[in-house]
């Protein structure tokens, strides 16, 4: 508990670290903050061409929004996914990449993965803002769902930070972690219904056994993506079980990461 108090006392440092991440990132670029929008736009274009035109994937029709537009359906899930992976990979390397700072000054080190999540979240707000505007433009009405969306953003942030804190400690001992995580995340992406609908998996499960779907839904990101699509694309309440699972994963992962981090923090400076 005294560690939490330390974190609270030094919250201004967290603010400054977040600013450092945000300002440092697009320094000396002509487009600046716009880059954070161009990246998802480019991805959207590629997936839309490949899946919508080449594979002829049809998105679900939004219920009750009535939307039937693959790029919007895709982005409703993809934005959550990209926030998650950026926060995890950035947070995981935040300790090793700030070795110089850790060896020279004391401050609660947990601010480093926190700063990554918050600055990633800040950029993500822009992307979400544009997506919400686009959905509105094409006939959806996501505005009333924004408060609930923010709640799930926080939960997703907790999940990502928890995993990042855990992996950051492991990464100090074994630098393999960051390379290994990159592979796991790219496999995880295809195992999560981001670019294809879960109905494909349901069909497969109906033919080959229900256990497939059960295993599939153990993945917390599947739940989060479902919730984000409910809120953004369908404009409706997320399923209760999805919401509870998201909540449990977020709190569980964060607490685990927190405890592991606090117990290992003291030795970080000499291990780096």
């Amino acid at each position, binding site marked *: 508990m005294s560690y939490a108090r330390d974190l609270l006392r030094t919250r201004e440092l967290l603010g400054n670290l977040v600013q450092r991440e945000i300002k440092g990132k697009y320094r000396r670029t002509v487009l600046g903050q716009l880059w954070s929008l161009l990246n998802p736009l480019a991805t959207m274009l590629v997936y839309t061409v490949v899946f919508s035109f080449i594979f002829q994937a049809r998105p679900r029709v939004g219920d009750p929004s009535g939307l039937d537009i693959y790029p919007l359906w895709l982005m409703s899930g993809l934005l959550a996914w990209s926030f998650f992976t950026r926060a995890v990979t950035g947070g995981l390397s935040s300790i090793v990449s700030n070795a110089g700072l850790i060896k020279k*000054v004391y401050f609660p080190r947990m601010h480093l993965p926190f700063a990554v999540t918050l600055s990633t979240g800040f950029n993500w707000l822009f992307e979400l803002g544009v997506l919400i505007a686009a959905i509105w433009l094409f006939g959806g009405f996501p505005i009333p769902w924004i408060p609930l969306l923010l709640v799930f953003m926080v939960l997703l942030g907790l999940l990502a930070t928890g995993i990042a804190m855990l992996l950051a400690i492991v990464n*100090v001992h074994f630098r393999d972690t960051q390379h290994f995580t990159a592979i796991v995340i790219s496999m995880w992406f295809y195992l999560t219904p981001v670019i294809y609908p879960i109905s494909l998996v349901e069909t497969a499960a109906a033919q080959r056994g229900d256990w497939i779907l059960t295993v599939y839904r153990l993945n917390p990101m599947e739940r989060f993506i479902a919730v984000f699509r409910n809120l953004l694309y369908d404009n409706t309440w997320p399923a209760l079980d999805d919401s509870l699972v998201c909540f449990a994963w977020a709190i569980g992962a964060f607490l685990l990461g927190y405890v592991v981090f606090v117990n290992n923090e003291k030795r970080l400076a000499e291990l780096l």
Partner: protein
Amino acid sequence: MTESAVVVDGVSKRFRLYRERNATLKSALMRGRASVYEEFWAVRDVSFDVPRGTTLGLIGRNGSGKSTLLKTLARILHPDEGQITMSGRVASLLEVGSGFHPELSGRENIYLNGSILGMSRKEIDSRFDEIVDFSEVRKFIDQPVKNYSSGMYVRLGFSVAVHVSPDILIVDEVLAVGDAAFKTKSKRKFAEFRDQKRTIILVSHSMPQVRALCDQVVWLDGGRVRAIGPSDEVVDAYLAHIDADEVDSNEE
């Protein structure tokens, strides 16, 4: 008796010296479960008291554990044995400008570094001009610090650290940097600190400086306290020891 600002009680710090330390899973697996390392005590059973408002100097040969001890005082390292009690706000200056981000401007870095050292935004606001004046980099304050000369970099970092106005200041060989004018200036700043009844713990290899600045000196030798006492006494003993060593090695 005046109260103690810092009490160091039986502090030891141990490092593990790994035969191969390349932090990969492969090397861990090849080693088997028990990793191969030797234990090495960099600081061993060190105890001393620093009364409030005094300056303590740490001296000793290279590798005698001075920086390691300072890092445990600064909470960067955690002692394996013993306890450290500090009363008041602590600022450490182990390497100047270590919290700087090269792409950010001097101004932005003052805020970042100040908050790393424990200043609130308000405090930095109110001392901003002082910090900039002391560092003499006003003309370049809105330039990214990677364009600074190394001297300017050091000045700005030092300036931020001394304006944190801590109750206890921990410094490692920082006075060795900067040009002559800046050295004079930083010495004056230290004198000012002493007048304001702040406690300073510093490491230096410059014996005249130690005599001039310190009330009390701890001489570390191989991680242990070799001598402790008034600065002139301990410095004389240390210098005599070094001279004797030199005679020894010349005779061989």
